[in-house]
């Protein structure tokens, strides 16, 4: 149960024109499952490797329970990293792989055998101890890699893209496994992913990293309801950004005057609302009603995407296909935006 504190972590690569990590700071509560989310090259794996001791930062600090671990060698930190391509030692059996960490700590062989058996049961791979890694499926290999990491009871568990190599149907099982393992063991776990669905489903809190900077660090829903800026919103599939001024609970912009939810701050800003929150038809109360020209209809099976224009503004909406049935391109479509779905990015 370790609290991880990442403080102003910066990493410059020689010859690089901008830092891989730019003063990244993050406080991770002990016992939580945190996702580091971001596109490739944003610095999330670099952060993991620094925590694990496989890379040195240019500046900044990393603390476990308040004590800095930067001076410590990788093998002494208690932070175990599981790589994306599992990297099971090819010439060792599954049991030897899982027991590796204990062997390095000079645990006695009988004890190693016992714990390995326990671990393999825990990841639901009993009886596979004598096989070679090459004889296992991708999902099984991933589980062995997890077992190999958990057996040494790390203070912090670092998972690098644990789901990226798996087929969709295997992903669900692995998500469940990671989730339940983390809850059973209570180990502070950080995992890296570029897929926001994985992050949203698995993590207690999500840290969005773009271009080496930490954008937002909150529970998953915050990225949908209260994105911190346009880039963040877009990463999560947000659309519809319009600039204007908010005053007295009303937002004035090219879309007209829209009623904001309670507690909105006054001033200049960008209003955003997610496509799935756009409602067809006008609200009886008359609040936030718009009429738009339908430009494009894209049928996606379980949903229909509509591209509309209000004056010069382009709006995207995602609606139920049945609701969209009546509309043809060129028609005028009544919409309304529930005030609770509006968010102003200042």
């Amino acid at each position, binding site marked *: 149960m370790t609290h991880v504190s990442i403080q102003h972590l910066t990493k410059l690569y020689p010859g690089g024109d901008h830092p891989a990590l730019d003063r990244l700071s993050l406080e991770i509560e002990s016992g939580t499952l945190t996702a580091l989310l971001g596109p490739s090259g944003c610095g999330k794996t670099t952060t993991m490797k620094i925590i694990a001791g496989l890379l040195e930062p240019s500046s900044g600090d990393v603390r476990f329970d308040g004590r800095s671990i930067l001076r410590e060698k990788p093998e002494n930190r208690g932070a175990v990293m599981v790589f994306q391509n599992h990297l099971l030692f090819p010439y060792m059996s599954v049991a030897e792989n899982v027991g*590796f960490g204990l062997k*390095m700590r000079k645990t006695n062989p009988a004890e190693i055998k016992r714990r390995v058996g326990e671990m393999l049961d825990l990841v639901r791979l009993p009886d596979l101890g004598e096989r070679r890694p090459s004889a296992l499926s991708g999902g099984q290999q991933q589980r062995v890699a997890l077992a190999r990491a958990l057996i040494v009871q790390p203070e912090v568990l*670092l998972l690098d893209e644990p789901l990226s190599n798996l087929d969709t149907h295997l992903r669900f099982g692995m998500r469940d496994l990671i989730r339940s393992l983390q809850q059973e063991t209570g180990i502070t776990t950080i995992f890296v992913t570029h897929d926001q669905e994985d992050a949203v489903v698995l993590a207690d809190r999500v840290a969005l990293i773009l271009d080496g900077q930490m954008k937002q660090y909150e529970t998953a829903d915050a990225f949908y309801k209260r994105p911190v800026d346009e880039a963040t919103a877009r990463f999560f599939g947000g659309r519809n950004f319009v600039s204007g001024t908010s005053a007295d609970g009303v937002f004035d912009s090219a879309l007209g005057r829209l009623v904001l939810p309670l507690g909105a701050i006054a001033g200049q800003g960008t209003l955003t609302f997610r496509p799935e929150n756009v409602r067809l038809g006008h609200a009886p109360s008359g609040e936030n009603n718009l009429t738009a020209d339908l430009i494009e209809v894209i049928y996606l099976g379980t949903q229909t995407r509509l591209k509309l224009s209000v004056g010069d503004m382009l709006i995207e909406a995602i609606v139920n296909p049945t609701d969209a049935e009546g509309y043809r391109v060129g028609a005028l479509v009544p919409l309304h935006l529930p005030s609770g779905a509006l968010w102003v990015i200042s």
Partner: protein
Amino acid sequence: MSDRLKIFLLLLPALLVIVGLFFGGLLIGLMRSFNYMPVIGLTEPNLQAYAAIFTEEEFYYSFLLSFHISFTSTVISCILAVGAALLLRRAFIGRAIINFLFQLNLTVPHLVGAIGILYLFSQSGSFARLAAEFGMIARPADFPALVFDPYAIGIILQYVWKEVPFIGVIVLANMQAMGEDYESVARSLGASKWQSFRYVLLPLIFPGLLSASVIVFAFTFGAYEIPALLGANYPAALPVLAYRKYTDVDLAARPEAMALAILIAVMSAVMIYIYIRYARRRVRGVR
């Protein structure tokens, strides 16, 4: 044209050369070692040549000497080569120079290196003169015999000089292909630098190391010019003994020379066997 025929025709010239010259040469040598050569009238094979060798004290000393040379050279070269490869893995300021020198070394023939060792380590060589300069010795004879000596130190030095870059280049290529990820995993799991080398990296580079060692051992066992130049007269290395017998005025020594040649071939066959048995299987398991 069918594939099978195509393959056969492509391989034909090479197989002719190999089967004709190489295996043919071995076969003839084998036959002559049994004193069997119908073409010139020797129609009764016998084991006289082998009997003569195996009852000769000189043979055993020569065999042991050659084995000692090969074994020691191979082991020392392997250890130093792995060390050099570990050094050269990561970029640092002298790396380009050393890489270049390694490759330069590969192009220098053994004979030149052997002469260089001779001029450096003989009792009137550069090191002896340095020792005299510092007052450690008075006359050449005072300097320890490193060439023409019973322990073949000069010979081993020369082989190590040439084989460390040879093995080193192979091992380095292996290490670079492997990357550092496996060791990262091991360190992350609690292995120290030494443990991650011993339990993770070493097993991974072992197949390449073994194949290189096998080549080095066979080469050093059967090479002629280096022990001919740097070695003592008695006991002489096995190839030197074989050549001596072959060029002996007494023609009866010829089958004995053939027998020695066959024994050298057998030793390299053992090396090939070791390679097939231990290096190949490993490689398949890894890939």
